[in-house]
């Protein structure tokens, strides 16, 4: 039975809607995503750890859920906000409704609020924390919402013990900061065998695997909190071909002495145009990040390979060592447009070239 529920932002703004998913409360950083498809991939993307995600497209859940369209073992979002949740999905792969899925995975959700008003609020006021609850929070609770901070989420979600997966003649060490399954799948398609390491792995352990290349994955949170991880990356840079995606991209930048900044409201969606600075070519990319690399702090270390058309932020770096490159967007997609899949080929080419030397 439908029940009333609210989203209350840290500034006190309240939105009244209906509760969906798991019945309970959820506090997190409220962000919006403008993608029109791929809600299940998005829910299970570990980069959303600790966040309440609001979908700007109003009809969500149309295709139900299935066992395949997942980017990790379970949903990682803290809360989920939609305008309309589909009760009767239809897709040949559908195994159940999104609502049941949210309930099963204890994800608290909210339906029926003016999601566009919320989006504009975040756009204009910047990302803020909020709570989904069945009653309006009292002052004490609101103060807790205001004080909400999720420190070092990577530590919580990275794999605890290393494991190997895939087969092939080239070995890639993958450092998991909250990886999306499709990064592994993309590397496997390139014919790589993989060893996935916890984020806290030491450089020595990684190198002991004798990798042909190193992949730094996506992940949640403020990159600067990953102190130990940055130290490891520092030691690994220049040793092997290295490819960083999203958080991986930011950690490389920090490891090389560069800086990152928090974006006002981040980039989350499947329509972000980036420019390949070498060729001038345009690519539409899938993005999910709240921080960006300040390219000007790395001028001596490398060049910007991709730029965001909308706000001019750095979307990729190519470093002077000729081995290290990284992108802020998600070439592994799922969800999102597949225009930049060539980056995995590029990585593989770099690995092949390096191992021939």
């Amino acid at each position, binding site marked *: 039975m439908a029940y009333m529920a609210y989203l209350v932002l840290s500034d006190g703004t309240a939105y009244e809607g209906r509760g969906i998913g798991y019945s309970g409360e959820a506090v997190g950083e409220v962000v919006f995503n*403008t993608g029109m498809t791929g809600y299940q991939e998005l829910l299970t993307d570990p980069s959303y750890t600790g966040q309440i995600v609001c979908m700007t497209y109003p009809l969500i859940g149309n295709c139900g859920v299935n066992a395949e369209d997942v980017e990790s073992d379970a949903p990682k979002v803290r809360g989920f906000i939609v305008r309309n949740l589909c009760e009767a999905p239809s897709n040949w792969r559908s195994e159940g409704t999104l609502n049941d899925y949210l309930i099963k995975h204890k994800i608290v959700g909210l339906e029926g609020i003016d999601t566009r008003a919320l989006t504009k609020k975040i756009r204009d006021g910047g990302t803020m924390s909020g709570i989904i609850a069945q009653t309006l929070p009292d002052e004490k609770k609101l103060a807790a919402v205001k004080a909400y901070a999720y420190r070092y989420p990577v530590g919580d979600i990275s794999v605890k013990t290393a494991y190997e997966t895939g087969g092939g003649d080239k070995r890639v060490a993958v450092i998991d900061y909250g990886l999306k399954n499709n990064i592994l799948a993309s590397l496997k398609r390139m014919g790589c065998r993989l060893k996935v390491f916890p984020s806290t792995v030491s450089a020595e352990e990684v190198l002991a695997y004798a990798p042909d290349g190193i992949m730094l994955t996506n992940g949640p949170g403020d990159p600067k909190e990953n102190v130990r991880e940055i130290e490891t990356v520092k030691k690994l840079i220049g040793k092997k071909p290295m490819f960083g995606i999203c958080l991986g991209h930011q950690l490389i930048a920090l490891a090389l002495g560069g800086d990152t900044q928090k974006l006002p409201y981040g980039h989350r969606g499947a329509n972000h145009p980036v420019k390949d600075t070498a060729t001038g070519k345009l690519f539409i990319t899938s993005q999910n990040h709240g921080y960006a690399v300040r390219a000007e702090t790395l001028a001596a270390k490398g060049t910007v390979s991709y730029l965001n058309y909308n706000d001019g932020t750095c979307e990729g770096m190519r470093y002077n060592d000729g081995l290290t490159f990284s992108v802020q967007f998600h070439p592994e997609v799922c969800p999102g447009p597949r225009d930049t899949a060539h980056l995995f080929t590029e990585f593989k080419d770099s690995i092949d070239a390096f191992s021939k030397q």
Partner: protein
Amino acid sequence: MAKDPGIKRVLIIGSGPIAIGQAAEFDYAGTQACRALQNEGIYTILVNSNPATIMTDKQMASRVYLEPLTPAVLKNIILKEKPDSILPTLGGQTGLNLACELYESGFLTEHNVRLLGTNVDSIKKSEDRELFKETMEAIGEPCIESAIVYSVEDAVAFSKGAGFPLIVRPAYTLGGTGGGIADNEAQLKSVCKAGLSASRVGQCLIEKSVAGWKEIEYEVMRDEADNVITICSMENLDPVGIHTGDSIVFAPAQTLRDQEYQMLRSAALNIISALKICGGCNVQFALNTKSMEYAVIEVNPRVSRSSALASKATGYPIAKVATLIAVGYRLDEIINGVTGKTYACFEPTIDYVVAKFPRWPFDKFTEANKTLGTRMKATGEVMAIGENFEASLLKAVRSLELGFISLDYKKYGDMTKDELYCALALKNDERMFCVCAALRKGVSVALINEITTIDPWFLFKIKGIVELEERFKQIKGLKNLPIGLLKDAKQKGFADKAVAKWIGETEDAVRRHREKNGIRPVYKMVDTCAAEFDAVSPYYYSCYQTENEAHPVPNQSIVVLGSGPIRIGQGVEFDYCSVQCIRAVKESGYEAVIINNNPETVSTDFDISDRLYFEPLTSEEVWNVLALEKPAGVVVQFGGQTAIKLAKAVEDKGYRILGTSVDSINDAEDREAFDRLLETLKISRPAGRTVYTGEEALDAAHALGYPVLVRPSYVLGGQGMEIAYTDAEIRDYMDIINQTEQEHPILVDQYIEGKELEVDAICDGKDILIPGVMEHIERTGVHSGDSISRYPSATLKDAVVERLVDITKKLALGTKTLGLINIQYILKGDDIYIIEVNPRSSRTVPYISKVTGIPMVHLATRCCLGERLADMGYGLGLYKRSKVTAIKVPVFSNEKLPDLEISLSPEMKSTGEVLGLSYDPGEAILKGLYASGLKMDKGGVFISVANKSKAEMLPLAKALYALDFTLYATEGTAAALAAEGVAANAVKKLHESDDIERIIKSGKVKIIINTPTKGRNTRRDGFRIRRMAVENGVSCFTSLDTVSAFVEALKVGKNDGELSLIALQDIM
């Protein structure tokens, strides 16, 4: 890259007259192209034969040619204007074909004219079936397996590899006559055999059937630097099997997972890259509902109806960007007008749901075949934007103006389950309502899906609407209506009027009740980016959420009501008037606001008005906008009958109508009030009566004497208008008309045969200005929209003209007209009778404005705002007679509508019009006929006329004979001709032999002259001959007046390459 400095003079080819399958969307695209090029400082030369369009306005291009769209004419324009380039992809298939033909003839190369945008090789690759298949195979994109066969054996051989089901399509037959679906070899043999014999070249296309697969479309763009983006995905509610133009379509695609969406998106981008298209492109896919299997159905390497829809659905101006790409810009060099800051190189994302619903002509053509298939039948469409699926669908249904206020349609509601199963299997224009009725009766989604193959997602959503409708029916009175339920219904797009009907209250009571409870719409912006960026586009839709984004200042704006979907009788000309009115309003210092629901039009381009509300044109939605805008006034006289019908609702809520008042509008439409006025003014009209029942109609007919003209009051386009000669015809007519509830009475008038004259006048309440008097070529009894019309009149005596001006002035003042008025007259001898008065703009306003140079809508708008004609500089009374003769020729889409009676009658049938302009009146007719697509080659003429017309036919037959036509006639007629010294080949009547069929099918006969006897009996010879003509692409004249114009034109003795050229800029 940037603009190519070598591009200085560009020829833009328009799409010509509105026809089914090629409508106002190309006026929208062409207008954007003209504006974009003008902004670039490029000298533009526009050619389009359609005078009702905005793009052919003098200001839209440096040179505007209203000329026939034939290769010979285009060549002469190129020689005269010396363009350096041609923009071929904005004028529909017509423009594209012409450009390709000119290119292939070597003419363009010879004269150093290049084609902008996509090159001809690429166009060929997407249009030629074989080349397309090869290209797709080369890049690994799957096509639908097919083969061309000349024998049943070949077909069977193909089936061994391809499997079943297979579709058999005979070559060169219209409407797929003789084709069919085969599920096994036995069926294939019989269907193929029939198909081969139906095809005049004995050829069939055998194609793997993907009927029932999802039909998904992508609008994609590419620039010369190979940057590719997707603008919009669309999903047809009607799966593969029904033409996308006849499908209910939603944007974005609703039932695709990211995997499927991205797979097809990548495929679309691969295709546009492989084809090297520069500009916009539409790619249609069939997607298996049970796997990831898909096939490319079709690619359109140009802007299209779908791109217009995608532009309106997202706010991304595809035609404008495509134009800029064509002159050399890259996507990242073109500013996104919606944000004003970002560039065109992004993919729009939307945060609402868009529905497109086709508008079919079957409300008028009750006897035409309504089955939907691969040949498009809709004349227009509506679009609706909603916060969810339900709201977008219901808003779209209400926008159709077919009387639907909900999904509850009585016709199907009364059917039994068994009847519904049968009805569901019919793919026709009412399938949506049939589905609703079935759901209402408890038929399962699974079963409906099995019968219709409509995706269960849509069916479940529709079921939700139906269940909510049923809940309302259980509630009696507002006091029993839970507020939560009402709010839910409003969010889902339910109309107050529907709620009121179900719970037994008035619409006003429901409205007051919900407003009292805070249930009011807010307006959200269409911004291409789902609010991610701050946008400036003044483009809004309503929804029942919390935050309003439209913030007008009271008393600053004037609201213009648009004309809704293109339908027969209300076409693009009313959009022309609306846009002109918007411009005039802006110039007067007010903010111009438009409400409209047609995605194909210029008026719904977001940068035409100061604010665009994309909403149904119903009283509820109009009131809502007015409540927000608090406008200084509302203009209703330019949006056709759609807007006129809303006048009372506007006034009832206390808003000011600018222009002719509601009372005056009613007086002009109300028979008795109008008769009283005519009596006072001493103006005659054919005697007539107002009736409601069949008996009353018979009494009236007897009193007046046959023939009589019967028609409903308050109609446009002569809807349901007929000449009746017998009691039986009156009875038939009244039976049909009374099937739907008639709010207004039926008029029975004496039919007077004479010359029809038409006048459009502007009146400021004191003075009038008449740009000119138009004379119809066909005598009374043919709808004015279907008549060839001539301005200035060739035959009128000065005294008659003077009296016409006098009567027009009396009528304009007598009806208290403020703004435009359209009057149709009959001239019999020297007597003038009134046929009808329309207190609004008319179909003829655009072309008369263009020919005379009087900006009629502009002046009329200023009159509405209180200015005086005397101060406008165009004089008063009748404007000086133009030296140029303008001939307006109607254009029909008969070949698209099987079983339609094509003969000219009081009921309008044409979908579009063209203009012929010349200083020589005869040549003007010739140009008009050329422009209309009539083949002017000499050849065989088959004459078969009613007995009463034989005497009149004789001189025409003689003239044709003298012009070297070979005559064929039925035995009686041939004998009569022989007696006059005209040799004609005698043929036997249709029911006696296959003579007639043979001469038509063999191509011996190029023209058929067949005047109808009476009635619309489809079994009669005449009807069958006329349809045979249409089916075989043979021109058919059904009025001898048209034939005499044809003869007059032929006597000019010019082919299209010898015609004079006139640019609008040269007419003074």
